[in-house]
């Protein structure tokens, strides 16, 4: 599904070259649940952003669904991630002015899906995450765990092939965190959703099928759980 070859990322400031990622090679197959770990500054978020096409590598080859991303134009890249990738953030990034229902509906609006179909899809999603009762509340009225649940529902509503999560439990307490991780595991096991998550927590990483450790921008270790 995803293949990174010799990916490097560095910034130049004057003569000083700061390297973030250094010659990363990574292949992810459909149905995998990969956890990326590493200390602060090891480049794990940058790697996730590159995979999500939010950021571009300085060097290297990047294939997604057999398409050479490094050769695509901005527009094509956008179309590709819009259709296939869902994002979940540490800070949820729900839109404050929108209700739970509307937050989940927003991606459908951007995908030009008709009103009837939107209603059905959102209703399904609310059902599935058991948040029907909360659909008219605003994000500020929800707990962190509930907000993240909405964030995940929103990411999944357009049925992406790949779910990217940047520290999805970073702002949650351990009980809420466990619930989110269980949900991820279920999604992966039962629906075959491909997931790549970045995490600090050893425990959370264990939910995945593979753990990749980054250190100073290189893959230090990769092991299957």
């Amino acid at each position, binding site marked *: 599904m995803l293949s990174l070859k010799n990916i490097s990322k560095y910034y130049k400031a004057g003569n000083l070259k700061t390297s973030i990622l250094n010659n990363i090679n990574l292949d992810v197959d459909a149905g995998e649940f990969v956890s990326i770990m590493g200390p602060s500054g090891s480049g794990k978020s940058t790697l996730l952003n590159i995979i999500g096409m*939010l950021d571009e590598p300085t060097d290297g080859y990047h294939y997604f669904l057999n398409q050479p991303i490094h050769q695509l134009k901005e527009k094509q890249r956008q179309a590709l991630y819009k259709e296939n990738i869902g994002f979940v*953030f540490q800070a949820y*990034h729900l*839109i404050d002015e929108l209700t739970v229902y509307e937050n989940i509906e927003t991606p459908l609006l*951007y*995908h030009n899906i008709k009103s009837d179909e939107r209603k059905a899809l959102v209703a399904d999603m609310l059902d599935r995450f058991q948040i029907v009762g909360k659909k008219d509340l605003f994000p500020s009225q929800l707990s962190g765990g509930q907000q993240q649940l909405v964030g995940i529902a929103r990411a999944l509503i*357009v049925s992406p092939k790949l779910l990217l999560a940047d520290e999805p439990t970073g702002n949650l307490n351990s009980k809420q965190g466990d619930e989110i991780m269980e949900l991820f595991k279920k999604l992966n096991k039962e629906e075959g959703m491909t997931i790549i998550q970045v995490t600090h927590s050893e425990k959370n990483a264990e939910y995945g099928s593979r753990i990749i450790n980054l250190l100073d921008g290189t893959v230090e270790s990769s092991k299957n759980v």
Partner: protein
Amino acid sequence: MIKNYLKLAWRSIIKRKFYSILNISGLAIAIGCGILIYLYTSYQLSFDRYHKHPENIFRVVYELHFERTEYDKGSSIAAYDALRVDSTYVQQAAVSVNNQSFIVNVNGDVNKRFKEDQNIAFTNSAWFKMFSYNWLEGNASQLDQPNTAALTQTQAKKYFGDADAVGHTLEINGQRVKVIGVLADAPYNTDLKSDIYLSFLSIKNLQPKIEPTFYTDWGYLNRTNSLFVSLTNPAQKATVEQQLTTLTKQRLGAGALNYYHFKLLPLSDMHFDMRYAGKVQKPLLVMLVIIGLLIIIIAGINYINLVIAGQTRRSVEIGTRKILGGSTGQLFSQFMIESLLNVLIAIVVAVVGVILVLPTVNQLLFDGNPVHILSYSQMVLFLAIILVVITIGTGIYPALLLSRANIFQALKNNVLNVKAGVSRRALVLLQNVVAQVLIISTIIIVMQVRFLKNTDTGFDRKFVVMVPVGDVPQTQKDLLRQRLQSIPGVQSLTFCSKGPSSDSQRGATMKFADRGWEKWPARFAIGDSAYMHTFGLHLLAGRNIRSNTPIPEYVANQTMVKMLHLKSYDEILGKKLEIDGKGIIVGVVKDFNVRSLLEPIEPSIILENQYLQQNVAIKLSGSKSETALAAIQKEYLHTFPDQVFSYHFIDDEIADLYKTQSLQQKLIWMASGIAVFISSLGLLGLISIITLHRTKEIGIRKVLGASVTQISMLLSKDFLVIVLVAMFISSPVAWWIMHKWLEGFAYRVEVQWWIFAVAGVLAIAIAFITVSLQSVKAALANPVDSLRNE
């Protein structure tokens, strides 16, 4: 999708109440001003444009070339007769002898007696052919018979109630006049308005004293004679003017061409040409439109600044939306719709505001000439244009900036770091320059108007009341004088033509002693021997005039002595003067303002003219003037039982002279108040947003030991520098504008340096207070809170 955007926009307006109120109220005030200015200017510009082919209609006016040129809108009946029959280019000519005052007895009933003041016109059917009036009953051709009248609807109702007016009679000056028609009330936007139209042929019967030369003399030019012509083609204006010159030469001789110059004034200029008694100066309208635009620009700048700065808080939202699949175009529309909604709300608020304040504005500013909304459809069109222009003008830049933001940057919460800083400063600078120019102008205009109203005019005008008596026999005047003098509280009284300081004083050129005709005219102050005493004029040499002397006696003013190049007052005393008649100069009076202070003091003489002394000016002692007035009214009606009593104070009359300046003063007051207020709103919004952006920095500085004062200064410094720079730019600009404005006055205040200093201090104080509101709050905040996140 649009519905979704609107919902979102609405929620975001509600959620950020503080910024929304700043944003919308600033815009609404500016738009409200814009609407008011639009109403005023479009109303003024519509004057007399509704007649048929207004572009072909011209008023015959003349210039009188003496040492200074004088302008007059009047004309002569002889000119009317000549143009009526004698011109190939003149399609029609029409004349009206307007602003006549009579006492009208309805149906000859003495109990239904009305004093009609200046609202009666003598005219004929030609007038109604040229101008568009709506005849409800009767027709104009009947006005070609003597002793006939047409009334407006309101006037007919006043006289006859709901009964049909046509066929009834009015008794005017002992003559019976038949009502032959009723006209719809004239629209508001006309200067050609009378309530009673008497047939032209009635003049002979109603004003038997009028000289025969009134009809025949080319030079019998009267201000109340309004002569209009309609041409087959406006381009023939010059030809007809040439024709008038030829006619003047024929009738008055070649010598008269040095003095008399007849001109055609286009109907469209009549309302605006102040030389010919126009009502509004075009420059004032231009000034208003400029002020309106400036205010809208200031508010627009505010809006842009606030939106850009405020929306950066939505950085993450922008990023998230992009990740969820929103395209640049979609985000752009979202922001544009938000702008649209904001502007729409502002317009609604503004319209409601305008409807609420219009009566007050009319009363405060346009007393006697209120603004009327003439066309609601045009108004809606204007609002639609405003909506589109302001939405695009203020929405596009922020929308482009925000929708194009890079996702990655957006999610990191720095869509616009300092990028907008320079242009933002420039915008705030521009705002401040405009506001300060207006502040300086306000101070100077207020000083000038106060100066005009309070300057020593050389005569005593306090508690002088003017009562019109009309053309009555001398015996009755004497009787009235006796009766009035017995009233306690009446200090002195004089029968006169007008008080000093009036905008229309008669004047004439003269022959002094053995010299020839002078090139300049002297003004007349017409009154009896008590004139000087009543108005508190100071005699410098010789003696006062005496009444009813066989040879007329004159008192000249100092300027007259100067203009005659005489070295001492003795040289003028006892000398012959041929002017109104042939008389001698018996005294010299200290200079006083015969006309308004817009004009310098002119050579003037005080003289008697029984016929023109149709008013009595009464000097009251001041206290208990109410009782004195009641007593005066009683004695007046005792003497003239068939008259109607009316009066006015000279002080009010003088205030009327400076109406235009008063209006300018009020307008500039309001404009600068509003400009300063909107600028302050802008400052307030900006400083609060900047404070928000610098929360972390403020927290760190506090942890490092910065005091509240230091932090407030840190935040305020930038703005104070901008205000200072604005001072240096605005002072010369304002100086130049005011210098030009003051040139229009013969008597004017000095523009002194302290005015600029005051304006500067004011601007800094306002900015400082505004900025402090937020910066002190920020400086007092607990750093623990600001440093907790991130």
